[in-house]
């Protein structure tokens, strides 16, 4: 089995998906800039849809995985719209976009 076959097969897809998911988690935890956190979430959602798509092709050859990926994309877009509106609001209220300082609900 050559490298090309591996990379373009199921394992290659899952490998890229895993890397994206990991980097997404890292961005969510590590970034203090709220927009950076949002970018990390987008990476995570992309990783999830890669997994759905790859299993839909390499295991079932059915359309269902693609429908799930479609819904993931839709929800990601809605989530991005709301999240960015929240970030803008946060800035207007607290003059910051540091995710660590959005702690009004803590006390």
């Amino acid at each position: 089995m050559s490298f090309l076959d591996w990379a373009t097969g199921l394992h290659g897809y899952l490998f890229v998906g895993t890397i994206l998911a990991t980097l997404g988690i890292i961005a969510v935890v590590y970034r203090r800039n709220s927009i950076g956190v949002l970018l990390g979430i987008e990476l995570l959602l992309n990783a999830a849809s890669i997994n759905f798509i790859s299993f839909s092709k390499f295991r079932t050859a059915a359309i269902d995985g693609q429908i799930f990926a479609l819904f993931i994309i839709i929800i990601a877009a809605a989530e991005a719209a709301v999240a960015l509106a929240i970030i803008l609001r946060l800035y207007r209220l607290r003059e910051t976009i540091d995710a660590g300082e959005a702690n009004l609900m803590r006390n």
Partner: protein
Amino acid sequence: METGYITALWFIVISAVTVPLMLGIGWLIRPKVKGSELKSQAYECGEQPVGEAWIKFNIRFYVVAIIFIIFDVEVATVFPAMTLYKSAIAQGAGGIAFIKIFLFIGLLLSGLVYCWVRGDLEWIKGAAQGIKPRK
């Protein structure tokens, strides 16, 4: 079908290569001139540039972008459903397909109506409250 997508990818690759190619040719044949500080100033109609270019903008741009992304998603989702309508009519199931599709679009429309009524589609501040821009 495979060839189709591979060709489409080649289009992307070749048009992406075109830009560095043209800039590279230009770099080779043009005279090398050393720019001065005055020359590389940002253009503000001949005046000295004032402050940063990154000034604060009308937040309306952002509201429009939000409305756009929601509609974009809805339109993209409705495309595959639309491709079925013709065959649904041919099979005599046009009514059901019509209701399924236009229920979806009707909800989309209600979002537009909400934004319209609340004045989010007005570009000028206060236009929703009846303050008209100068004619």
